[in-house]
């Protein structure tokens, strides 16, 4: 049993939570709920020992796993007892190939080589990664990276699993795989604590705990996304209603990463500037890569992409006149180290932008994953007239923030059409889109 006795966390003078009392028995899936920045990740960090060993914070109370006080065990020895999957997947992958990622913990357990390989193969097979063992993890898609981390957890197989947003960015098939794995782990008597905004977790959880509102939150407010405030944007110079014309003309497009199969092959596609497109496909199908090809971050191996009649010449600041792109990795959409600095960079790009009404200027490191996502999206209402290319914009957002973003998308689709969105969370909102494209067999197919 995992017991949290009067547990609390505070950062210097800022109290995050206090007096948490939890008893989680073996064979239990426990859902940790709460708004963005309520302290879900911090609580997981405290249980695993990242707080206070690496993140300076004060904790009160005790964390017991059975009879053992987890706080007395150094982080480097915790892998015998727990696995903590961080929400920032990029940060947790370190090695040049997936095999080394899976082997590292087992090497420290000093398993004999035969056993080690069979454990790796079993875990990789369970998550459909058997053909990816030699691949560089940085070339995997966001969903595949999540699955790789689940496979690492499977190889270590400790009694306690702490999972921070394990379903983020996963397609239906991968989500089913992870849910099945979680049920399996539960049957094996493991204690599983999951912090995730995905309602599917609610369905399999045996128990849950909602963290109270953050006692002293760092205010990140995206209320400008609401329908009441958005029409105000119409009066702004930067919001001119788009005209329907060919935005992208793609001919014979092919692309493959080094030493990998083609992601896209001989693709022909036309995208109109007023198209609202939902792009779907399995994890690893190449959705994000396709977006990067459209933005010029990646260059095609073969074929041609024309942007408003002119060949796309790689990444160019002039392209901003036509579209705005947001990567799946939130940090890539932020510049500077704090909220204010990020906005200052926007003001260089768009001098007519007013200052953000900020009372404080939190560092990005002080913000939760969801809050960082919200900060990266603060610019969206000011760029309504542009064609939006957004990769997984709902990832890490809680219900409120997700609703606000949805409202914004609905507003744009009606008043300023023109967007290409990759998301696994918009299945129920297809009405926003006039086109649904799906990646299948190295090409894009239009769903009717």
């Amino acid at each position, binding site marked *: 049993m995992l017991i949290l006795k009067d547990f609390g966390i505070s950062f210097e003078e800022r109290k995050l939570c206090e007096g948490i009392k939890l008893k989680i028995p073996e064979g239990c899936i426990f859902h940790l709920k709460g708004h963005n920045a309520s302290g879900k990740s911090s609580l997981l960090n405290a249980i*695993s020992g*990242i707080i206070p060993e*690496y993140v300076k914070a004060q904790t009160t109370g005790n964390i017991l796993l059975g009879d053992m006080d987890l706080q007395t065990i150094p*982080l*480097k*020895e*915790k*892998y015998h007892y727990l*696995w*903590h999957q*961080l929400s*920032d997947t990029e*940060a*947790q*992958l*370190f*090695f*040049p190939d997936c*095999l*080394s990622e899976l*082997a*590292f*913990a*087992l*090497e*420290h*357990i*000093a*398993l*004999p*080589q035969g056993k*080690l*390989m069979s454990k790796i193969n079993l875990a990789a097979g369970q998550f459909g990664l058997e053909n990816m063992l030699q691949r560089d993890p940085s070339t995997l898609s966001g969903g595949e990276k999540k699955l790789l981390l689940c496979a*690492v957890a499977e190889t*270590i197989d400790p009694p306690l699993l702490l999972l921070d947003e394990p379903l983020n960015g996963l397609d239906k098939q991968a989500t089913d795989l992870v849910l099945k794995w979680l049920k399996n782990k539960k049957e094996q008597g493991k204690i599983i604590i999951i912090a995730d905004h995905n309602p599917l977790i609610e369905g399999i959880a045996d128990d849950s705990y909602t963290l109270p509102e953050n006692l002293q939150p760092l205010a990140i407010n995206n209320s400008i996304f609401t329908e009441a405030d958005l029409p105000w944007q119409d009066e702004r110079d930067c919001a001119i209603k788009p005209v329907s014309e060919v935005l992208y003309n793609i001919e014979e497009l092919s692309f493959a990463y080094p030493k990998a199969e083609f992601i896209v092959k001989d693709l022909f596609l036309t995208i109109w500037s007023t198209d609202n497109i939902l792009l779907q496909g399995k994890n690893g199908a190449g959705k994000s890569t396709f977006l990067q090809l459209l*933005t010029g*971050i990646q260059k095609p191996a073969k074929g041609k992409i024309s942007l408003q009649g002119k060949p796309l010449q790689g*990444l*160019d*600041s*002039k*392209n*901003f*006149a036509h579209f*705005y*792109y947001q990567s799946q990795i939130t*940090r*890539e*959409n*932020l*510049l*500077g*180290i704090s909220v204010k*600095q990020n906005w200052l*960079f*926007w003001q*260089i*790009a*768009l001098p007519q932008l007013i200052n953000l009404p900020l009372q404080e200027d939190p560092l990005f*490191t002080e913000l939760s994953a969801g809050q960082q996502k919200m900060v990266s999206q603060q610019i969206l209402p000011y760029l309504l007239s542009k064609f939006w290319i957004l990769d997984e914009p709902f990832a890490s957002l809680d219900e409120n923030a997700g609703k606000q973003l949805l409202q914004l998308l609905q507003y744009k689709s009606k008043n300023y059409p023109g967007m290409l969105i990759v998301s696994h969370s918009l299945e129920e909102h297809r009405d926003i889109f006039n086109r649904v494209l799906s990646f299948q067999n190295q090409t894009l197919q239009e769903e009717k």
Partner: protein
Amino acid sequence: MKNSSLHPLTHICIVLLLSTFVFIAKKPVSLLCLTILAMLYAGWRMENGWLKVFKTLWHTLPFLLILAFFQIVFRHKGTLLWSYGIIKITREAVLLSLQLTLRLLTVIYCAKGLAVMNYTEFSKAFSALRLPEELSFMLSYAIHLVPKFLSQLKGFVTGLKLRGIDAAKLSLSKRLQVYKQLSVTALAELIRSSETSAIALELRGFRSEGKRNILHQQKFSYRDIFCLLIFGALVVFVTLI
């Protein structure tokens, strides 16, 4: 990185040999030979090696030429070769600038050759010497610090372009301000990511007590010894020319 059948420790020794002897050698011919050896080594180790060797030379050449120019112009002691007004070029100054340029180039190519090694390779090299794995992590991180910093900076420049900011079109003061801010951010990110990597590794038992097994063990073989002996002899020979 290209696959090499040599033990990672052999590669570290090759780089150490080159970067040590380039500071022992004094004659321009010896230094030039060592620089060429370093270029050949880096070209062999890197993906698209020859292209990268050439690119490195192309990018560092202006910096090296400026350094050489200052060495030649401001060092007046020694045998006079040419003079015009207050400008004097001496034999010693030319020699010194040549030494400095070639030594710097050799070190740069050695670093390039070493930077293709990842943590796993450093770990293999140090475990052969029974050194702690922390050292592999630290060295691998230190070696990759500059490439990582540059890649962070490149990412931020991509971020600027995606926001429609063309840094070249900004006023000089604004441009300096932007690059200063981005450099500070890249540095902060570098520190943060090193900490997160350490956390991620410790969550999988890095630095833990007890015996460790290695999946892909590689022994320091006779081939490594042979290769080191030949290369060592070659380096000593060109140094003594």
